[in-house]
């Protein structure tokens, strides 16, 4: 089972080296090229030049024609367990604005308790000499601020937490 770009693909590797992807069988050959990450895949003769990085736990970062894609390889049992637990937990919506890149906070346009509309500027982060405006993903109320002007932030760092628009 391979998760890729939001889809799941059923992949079997047969004893004769053939690979079955979603029910379609292919002759497959994988070889190392430019170290450390270069790989050549021949799939029924079609040539794909990939870069591959193992991210651990069955996760792989693949690059093809300049596009980077994350893939996760699970055996059938693990995949099933995950599905069940996800269904049990229900969807959890993260109501936070994270730094999309490392940079420097140059301006914070909101305060805790402020109500924001979708598209309102919340923060401005400078990276590579360009200002990047971070906007509110929807109508909400700012519950916590984790950033101040002049502060360096890392990618993925939570900058602002939001609550329901009408929350106290």
């Amino acid at each position: 089972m391979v998760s890729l770009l939001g889809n799941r693909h059923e992949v079997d590797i047969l004893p004769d080296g053939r690979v079955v992807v979603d029910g379609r069988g292919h002759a497959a050959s994988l070889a190392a090229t430019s170290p450390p990450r270069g790989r050549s895949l021949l799939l029924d003769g079609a040539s794909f030049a990939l870069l591959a990085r193992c991210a651990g736990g069955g996760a792989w970062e693949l690059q093809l024609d300049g596009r980077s894609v994350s893939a996760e390889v699970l055996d059938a049992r693990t995949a099933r367990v995950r599905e069940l637990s996800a269904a049990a937990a229900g969807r959890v919506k993260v109501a936070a604005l994270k730094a999309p890149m490392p940079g420097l906070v140059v301006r914070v346009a909101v305060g805790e308790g402020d109500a924001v509309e979708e598209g309102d500027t919340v923060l401005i982060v400078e990276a590579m000499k360009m200002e990047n405006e971070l906007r509110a993903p929807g109508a909400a109320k700012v519950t916590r601020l984790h950033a101040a002007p002049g502060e360096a932030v890392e990618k993925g760092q939570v900058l602002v937490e939001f609550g329901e628009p009408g929350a106290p």
Partner: protein
Amino acid sequence: MFESVLVANRGEIALRVIRGARELGIRTVAVFSEPDRAAPHVLHADEAYPIGPARAAESYLNIAALLAVARAADAEAVHPGYGFLAERADFAEAVAGAGLVFVGPAPATIRAMGEKTGARRRMEAAGVPVVPGTATPLISAREARREAESLGFPVMLKAAAGGGGKGMRVIRRAEDVTGAYEGAVREAGASFGDGSVYMERFLERPRHVEVQIFGDGHGNAVHLFERECSIQRRHQKLVEEAPSVLLSPAERRSMGEAAVRAARAVDYVGAGTVEFLYRDGEFFFLEMNTRLQVEHPVTEMVTGVDLVEWQFRVASGEALPLRQREIPLRGHSIECRITSESPFDGFLPATGLVGELDVPGGPGVRWDGGIARGTEIGLHYDPLLGKLVAHGADREVAVRRMRRALKELRIGGVSTSAPLLARIMEEPDFLAGRLSTAYLEEHPELFGAEVADSGREALAAAAALLEHERRKRRAAPRIRRAARPFSPWAGSAAPRLDGRG
């Protein structure tokens, strides 16, 4: 010709200048900030000296440190590249004051053209058409609001001291003026050390066409035809071409003549670019850049002229090697800017360590890069990693070459603009030459995340095979099933990944 030059820059343009100098037998002196100690421009120069920490203000913009290196390394000239100090008249003056040759126009010219509002006035006087706008820098958000109302929306704010998209804002509504003005002032100040901004009427969907000019101080001024730079994102050019696909021969002649008029109006010496906005057969002076442009290679490809060589020749007092009628225009050239940005993820700046770098080769392809394997891409400097340039007998051949070259280019470890550029090279409006500066906004489909089916299948198969190999390698030292009888074929009988095998 002088015998040595200090290259006051980094990245691909430092490398480009070093190449040009080396071909003329000029000794090259590079400078580097702390994170650039092992950067390609350091490796390719004859000599290299440290000038300070990562922050550009303390290194590449540090005039005192640069002049100290020039003195210590006995450099006779200074080439500023583009960006950083290239359009700072005080730098050109300091270089001259230290008894060195500045490879660029006179400080007075830089000052005149760098002060964008004054330049507009001068060009109007020389009979070059300009876009309506403020004649002097704005002094307050209030003035900005007033000017915007009088010009009529949309309007555009621009840094009086610089170019390259920094400090620019398009404003469509009165209530956005104040915020945009403050942001533009802040960005301009951070980028150019001068927060002055001015306002122009914003032309909707114009084309950005610029003319390369050269003057030599012996009374000669020529143009080297135009470049079309309409494909931009936030006023940063992404794709450039020479010649412009839609200019008629008559328009080409008249724009070239206007550019030479502009050059003569300021007694221009060296390489410069006169930028025009073009719409429906009309063109307006936008600004004049008193330096080499990022996109100069497309002009080199279609004229056969080495612009950096000409810069050195003119700076050393020689006359221009060719007259206007001797400058040919051959075929078509396209440049794609490869930047460290994630085009399918809102163009976020990308960082990383360049682990793989495979550069295209073969006929009609040129790579002007500023990175090597092992280069750490951080957030200190411009995201331009390199420029991919294709040339062919006509635009169609150039586009086919560029497609092929983009497919060959491989940069591992950092996201780049390359896959977006590859899509542009297939997009019907681009292929038909239907371009404008709004091109990217009008083609949101280019930013979709989709991957072709064959690609998905290959990626899924590759992931499964990679993980399978990795597990096999990890399992190899252990004896897994003693009960299984030995067979020469058993070793290749791979278990199914779903655990049933």
